[in-house]
C-alpha cells in the first residue's frame, strides 16, 4: 500500500459519497471531502454530527455502508485497522486508550509495531536481528517521547499519569507509527488552558514534521488558532468547509452550530 498512483500535491485523503448506517440510524450521509497534504484539518460539528464516526471509518474501526475512502491513491474503506495503521494513518481516541499497565516508554514502543517485524521465534531465541531491532525501537521511542516532552516520565506506569499527559502520550504513541496522516479525536478534552496551549504547539510541531493532522475538537479557540482548514458536519452531512476565517463568517454554520454553542 505504498503511494503508487499518488502524486505529491494531490489530496492525501479523498472521501466519496460516504454513508454509515446503524440499523435505522444514519450517522454519515453522503459525505464527500478532499483533504490536501501537510495541513491541520479540523472537523467540527455538534454532538452526534458524525465526527467520530468519520474517524472510525477512516481508521478502519468501522466499515462504511457505502462510499469510498482513498488514502494516498488507494481505497482503504473496510480494511482492518491494523493494516490502515501500517499504511500510514494513526489515531487517538476520544476517551484515552492507553495501555495503562505499561510504562510510558512501552506505550510509545508499541507505536513502533507496524514499522518493525521480529516474530515470536526471533524474540524467543533472541536472534541478533531482533536484538538490534529492539534497541532501535527503544531509541526511536525515546526520540518521540522527547518530541512530546514526556522523556522525564519514561518509566512511569502510564495509567498513573495525569489526564493531560495521558493525552499527549497517546499522540506520541500515534506519531511513533510514522503516519502520513494522524487523526486526533478531541485531544484538548479535559485539558486546562495551559495544557491546551502546549497541545496547540505540539500539533503545529507535528505539522512541521510533514504529517497531515486531522482533529475533531470542541475548543473553538484552539481550532481557530491552529487549523488551516475546517470541515463542518451536521447530522452526518457536510455543512461547510473552508479556512477558519471563512467558517467563522458562514451563516449556515453560525446558525447550526456556533449559535447553539454560544448559548452555553
Amino acid at each position, binding site marked *: 500500500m505504498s503511494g503508487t498512483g499518488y502524486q505529491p500535491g494531490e489530496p492525501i485523503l479523498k472521501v466519496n459519497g460516504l454513508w454509515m448506517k446503524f440499523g435505522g440510524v444514519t450517522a454519515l450521509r453522503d459525505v464527500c471531502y478532499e483533504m490536501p497534504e501537510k495541513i491541520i484539518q479540523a472537523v467540527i460539528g455538534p454532538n452526534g454530527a458524525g465526527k467520530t464516526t468519520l474517524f472510525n471509518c477512516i*481508521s*478502519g*474501526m468501522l466499515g462504511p455502508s457505502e462510499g469510498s475512502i482513498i488514502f494516498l491513491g488507494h481505497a482503504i474503506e473496510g480494511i*482492518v*485497522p*491494523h*493494516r490502515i*495503521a*501500517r499504511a500510514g494513518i*494513526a*489515531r487517538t*481516541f476520544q476517551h484515552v*486508550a*492507553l*495501555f*495503562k*499497565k*505499561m*510504562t510510558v*516508554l*512501552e506505550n510509545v*514502543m*508499541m*507505536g*513502533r*509495531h*507496524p514499522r*518493525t517485524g*521480529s*516474530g*515470536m521465534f526471533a*524474540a*524467543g*531465541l*533472541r536472534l541478533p536481528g*531482533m536484538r538490534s*531491532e*529492539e534497541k532501535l*525501537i527503544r531509541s526511536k521511542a525515546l526520540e518521540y517521547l522527547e518530541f512530546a516532552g514526556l522523556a522525564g516520565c*519514561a*518509566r*512511569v*506506569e502510564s495509567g498513573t499519569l495525569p489526564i493531560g499527559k495521558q493525552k499527549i502520550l497517546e499522540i506520541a*504513541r*500515534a506519531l*511513533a*507509527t510514522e503516519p502520513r496522516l494522524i487523526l486526533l479525536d478531541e485531544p484538548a478534552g479535559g485539558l486546562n488552558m495551559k495544557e491546551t496551549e502546549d497541545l496547540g504547539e505540539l500539533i503545529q510541531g507535528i505539522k512541521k514534521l510533514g504529517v497531515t493532522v486531522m482533529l475533531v475538537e470542541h475548543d473553538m479557540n484552539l481550532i481557530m488558532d491552529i487549523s488551516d482548514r475546517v470541515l463542518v458536519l451536521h447530522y452526518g452531512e457536510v455543512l461547510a468547509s473552508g479556512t477558519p476565517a471563512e467558517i467563522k463568517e458562514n451563516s449556515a454554520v453560525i446558525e447550526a452550530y456556533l449559535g447553539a454553542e454560544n448559548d452555553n
Partner: protein
Amino acid sequence: MGRRNWAIMLGAAAFIGAFPWLVMPFKAVSHYVDVMVFAGIFSLVCIGLSLLMGYAGQISLAQAAFFGIGAYTSGILTSKLGVNPWIAMCAGTAVCAAVAWLVGVPALRLKGHYLAMATLGFGVIVNIIFAEEVNWTGGPSGMADIPYLRFFGRKITSELAWYYLVWGIVFLVLIFCFHVIHSRVGRALRAIHEDERAAESVGVPTASFKVKVFMLSAVLASIAGSLYTHYVTCLNPSSFNLMWSIRFMLMVMVGGMQSLWGALVGTVLMTFVGNEWLQVFAELEILAYGAILLVVALFLPGGIVSLGSLRRKKHASALEGAGT
C-alpha cells in the same frame, strides 16, 4: 528479560537442581521427586496457558485436549508405527499447532464466557475422540506399553534422569517465554489484553497474534503431553478430560496470572496439594480443593506471587521498560 528475572531464574534453577538431593535422603519425602516430575510436565502446559491467559488475556479450557493430542500423537507414532520418540514429539507439536490454528482462527474471535465455552466444547470433543477411536487410541481402557524415551540409545528410566530432563526443558521454555514477553511480540500481547482497539490502532494484527499465542500454548502443551506419554508409558483418556483443563487453569490462577513465575509456583504447589497434602483429608479432599479455589478466586485474584508485595507490580513494570 530483566536482571531481576535472571536472579530469580538462577535461584529457582539452583533450588530445582538441588531439590532431589534435599529430599532423597528422607524416606518420607523421597517420592517428592516423582511428584516434581509431574509438576514439571504440567508446568509446561501452565507456562503456555499463562502466556495465553495472563498476558494475552484469552481464556482457554482446551489445554488438556492439546496435552492429550501431543500425548496420543507420541503414543500412537511410537508404539504402533515404531517412530523414534523424539521425532514423534516433534510430530505432536506440528499436529497441535495445526489443530490450534484451525480452532483458534474462529474461536478467538469470541470473548469471555463464549470463548471459554467454545474451547471447553472443543476439549470435550477431543476427549470423546480419544475414547471412541478404539483402533488407534485403545479407547477408554487406554493404551499401554509405550516405549521409553531414549537418549543416545539408552533408555531413560531413572527418576532422576526424568527429573533433570523435564526441568531442563521447563527452564529452556521459561527462558524462551520470558524473551518473548520482553519483546515486541510480548508487548503486543499485553497490549491486546489491555485494549484491543488501541492495539489495532497502532498496527497490531490482534487476531493473528491471538492465534499465534494460542498455537504457542498448544505446542507447549503438546511437548508436555509427549513427555507424559513416555514417562507413564500408558495413556488413558481420563488424563486429558475437562477436569484437567480446569486444573491447569486453576494452577495458573492460584500461582498468579500476572507472571510466568506464578504459573510455575502455582503448578508445583497445586500438584503437591492435589497429590500429597490433601490426602490427609481423604473423602473431604474434594471439599478442601473447592475451598482453596474459592478462597483464592475471592480474596487473592492475583494469585500467590501477588503476595510478594504490591510494590513489585510497579517495580516489574518499570523494569520491563528497562530490561534488555
